[in-house]
């Protein structure tokens, strides 16, 4: 079997899951990373160092590599690699999303434009330059609204404003976050209507433009701002069939409007009595370690399903397991230096809890939203019902004790899972 080129950042959470899946499928992997791998010299045919931003140069490098070793598919594990994956797959004649569609999906503004133009439920939006006078922008805004840095993900820098005074304060804060976090300093802020309603996450797979919903996650904690920190995801959704259908329809419509046709999609939507509103859609699978909450048939992982699909294998028959499952992204309660997390053993003893993983080591600075974007870690649960999953996640979280000391002056918000 020709190998799969797996594009991932060296800080990814996903390497292990994809490599494990590849071993199960029996397909060799070429690891495409933005920095050289320690042992690339010992196995050069399995490693490629690629600049994910230099799309044309990196595509040429991949094509040149493929002349020596044929590639069966190109898959991006993270947001950073999706455009290069589309461009390289296109150059190699492999199944892929159109490059322009992926570029649209990577831009919050262009996504909004495409979804709105297709007549799908969409918040009113506009973009404002970072150097705009916030008071002037505030006067031209309807409330409540949400301010988002165009280039960041995972709710980082996303703030709700209910009135002009909130807006001005939020604008300064979002601009500061964007300037500090975006290469080149960021250029614009997206301002859009706040959409009330229940938020869900949809994990899907596109095949020739047809969206198959792999899992629909409820987010039982209200996300009403001023910041939008993700916490609990539980599947299957407890929404009714009509609501689930509306959500699937909105996600499929958004993918169509943007032009996405092939491979995994992760979408976030809000549901209210006016319909299902797309918050965002990304041409990749769920971020962080959250994919561990998904299991198909007798133990097929999401990554295995994605690999099989990319290789042209039939995955239609793979269904999510009958058990309910969920994950809690452990929020950072306050800024400071993480000195320790206690109570893991007790949390693991909660019925239904499968694992508790803290992914920030002791001694590191932790920064809550909106400046930060990573989570302290992840709690995983499996149970007979979504209610029991949610209950188990909350019970386990209550047992964890976070020792966070006063922050140092140099605390920075690093990148995090989407």
């Amino acid at each position, binding site marked *: 079997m020709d190998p799969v080129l797996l594009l991932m950042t060296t800080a990814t959470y996903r390497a292990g899951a994809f490599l494990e899946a590849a071993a199960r499928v029996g397909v060799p992997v070429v690891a495409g990373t933005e920095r050289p791998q320690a042992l690339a010299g010992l*196995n050069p045919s399995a490693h490629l160092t690629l600049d994910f931003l230099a799309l044309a140069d990196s595509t040429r490098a991949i094509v040149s590599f493929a002349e020596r070793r044929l590639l069966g598919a190109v898959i991006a594990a993270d947001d950073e690699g999706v455009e290069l994956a589309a461009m390289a797959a296109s150059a190699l004649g492999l199944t892929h999303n159109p490059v322009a569609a992926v570029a649209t999906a990577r831009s919050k503004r262009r996504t909004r434009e495409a979804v709105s133009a297709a007549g799908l439920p969409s918040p009113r939006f506009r973009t404002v330059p970072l150097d705009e006078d916030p008071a002037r922008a505030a006067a031209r805004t309807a409330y409540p609204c949400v301010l988002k840095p165009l280039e960041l993900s995972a709710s980082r820098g996303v703030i709700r404003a209910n009135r002009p005074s909130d807006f001005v304060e939020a604008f300064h804060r979002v601009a500061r976050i964007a300037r500090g976090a975006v290469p080149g300093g960021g250029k614009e802020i997206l301002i859009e209507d706040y959409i009330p309603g229940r938020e869900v996450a949809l994990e899907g797979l596109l095949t020739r433009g047809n969206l198959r919903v792999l899992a629909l996650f409820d987010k039982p904690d209200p996300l009403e701002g001023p910041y939008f920190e993700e916490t609990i995801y539980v599947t299957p959704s407890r929404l009714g069939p009509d609501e689930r259908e509306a959500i699937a329809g909105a996600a499929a419509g958004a993918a169509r409007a943007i032009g996405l046709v092939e491979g995994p999609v992760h979408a976030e939507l809000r549901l209210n009595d006016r319909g299902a509103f797309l918050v965002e859609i990304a041409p990749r699978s769920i971020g962080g370690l959250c994919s561990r909450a998904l299991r198909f048939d007798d133990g097929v992982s999401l990554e295995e399903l994605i690999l099989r699909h990319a290789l042209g294998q039939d995955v239609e028959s793979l269904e999510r397991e009958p058990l309910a499952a969920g994950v809690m992204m452990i929020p950072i309660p306050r800024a400071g230096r993480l*000195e320790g997390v206690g109570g893991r053993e007790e949390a693991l003893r909660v019925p239904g809890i499968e694992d508790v993983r803290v992914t920030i080591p002791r001694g590191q600075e932790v920064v809550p939203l909106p400046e930060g974007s*990573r989570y302290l870690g992840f709690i995983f649960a499996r149970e007979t019902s979504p209610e029991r999953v949610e209950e188990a996640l909350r019970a386990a979280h209550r047992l964890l004790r976070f020792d966070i000391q006063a922050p140092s002056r140099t605390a920075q918000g690093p990148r995090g899972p989407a």
Partner: protein
Amino acid sequence: MVTISDQARSRILGLMKAEKRDHVALRFGVQGRHGGEFVYRLAFVEESDRAATDVVVDAGGFQLYVDADSAPSLEGASIDYVEGPRESGFKIDNPNPVWPDPTARAVQQVLDTEINPAVASHGGHVTLIDVKDGIAYIALGGGCQGCGMVDVTLKQGIEVRVRELVPEIREIIDTTDHAEGRNPYYQPAKGGASPFSS
């Protein structure tokens, strides 16, 4: 089985006296292997720590416990205490090969000559813990421990090269606790240890 020099005995008895501890013994064992050498464990333990399978050596004034797993690798070893301008402390001479098993020796050779020089450039190191039934058990340390790319290093590098050069090895298992690592997952800079505390 293990001999203890007069200097070492005197030093150990002095430490026991200084700590005012009764009913203690000295546990001696092989903790691991690193860089082609044994890593030893030498520590005071309560007499109640003695296991039925331990080899017990009367060291003259105290007892030495050697666990059954370590015993074959410590046959004929000696413990001395040296004090001088260049080195000071307990010195262990051990005539036994670090890896009696030729397969383990071959794996260690690959780690020493190919893997570790390469991962050292990324601040990491790989230690062979054991080889049993065609499985090599390793631990990754330094910059490798908890690194988001550790699976790439393991599956795409270590496993491929070791299996290529030592065909008797069919699997490599990483025994590292990556939560203890210095750079797990998304992290702005190196530094730190396990977040879990009891």
